[in-house]
């Protein structure tokens, strides 16, 4: 599967959503804005399904990071709660990307494993509940909270649900990497 191609598709969808949002905000452009926004979301949904099918944690996280960054960019600066939450998400995803690099190096990751408590609370299926898992878990909660917000249409809901599913897939595939790195 062409992972760069998938990411290009994600960016195309993000560009259309960006244009759509600006169309909504501009007087007299609401109809064209709606087309770009809603069809952009529909395209994004298709892309996120392909991202899930890639079963590649890095591609999944990249796609999600792109959309978090877009949400941060277009967030109303007066909505301090959402701003704080999205900034936190960006930081935690940056930590997740670092974890993704370290897990590829068995010696490094075996060392890192020694620093993670071995109590159930700090493990996922016996593997370290590291920055990658923490980013996915926190963000899934964030997305599920957004799903409960009033006024979300069916395409927005479908995309949010797909994003949650993608993060679960990312964690499942990441555990395979942890397994390989730790030789368990």
């Amino acid at each position, binding site marked *: 599967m062409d992972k760069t191609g998938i990411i290009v598709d994600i960016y195309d969808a993000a560009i259309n959503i960006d244009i759509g949002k600006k169309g909504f905000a501009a007087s007299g452009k609401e109809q064209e804005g709606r087309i770009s926004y809603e069809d952009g979301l529909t395209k994004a949904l298709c892309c996120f399904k392909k991202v899930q099918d890639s079963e590649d944690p890095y591609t999944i996280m990249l796609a999600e*990071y792109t959309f978090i960054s877009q949400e941060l960019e277009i967030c109303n600066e007066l909505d301090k709660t959402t701003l704080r939450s999205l900034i936190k998400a960006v930081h935690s995803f940056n930590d997740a990307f670092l974890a993704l690099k370290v897990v590829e190096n068995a010696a490094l990751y075996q060392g890192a494993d020694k620093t993670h408590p071995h109590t159930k609370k700090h493990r996922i299926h016996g593997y370290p509940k590291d920055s990658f898992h923490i980013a996915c878990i926190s963000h899934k909660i964030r997305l599920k909270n957004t799903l409960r917000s009033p006024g979300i249409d069916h395409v927005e809901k479908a995309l949010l649900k797909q994003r949650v599913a993608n993060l679960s897939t990312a964690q499942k595939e990441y555990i395979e990497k942890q397994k390989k790195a730790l030789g368990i």
Partner: protein
Amino acid sequence: MPQARTMSLDQKLSISNKALALWKDGDTDGYRRLMQKLPIPPYLAKIAKEKIGENVLAKGGWDLSETEAECGQDWHNR
């Protein structure tokens, strides 16, 4: 330095709407050709460069004029 010519919101909406209509009709090549006429917003270009690398910007083929206007012509070298 001459100011980069930026695309108006009207032009972007027109291209975006046409591109998405092609995609809905199953013309993915036509869709991509039109998407390459659109400027990628600077915040997306910066993420692409930082997290993925220039190959995605090359493959995407988007107009980089807005990013160059905001960050300078040599932004991708920094």
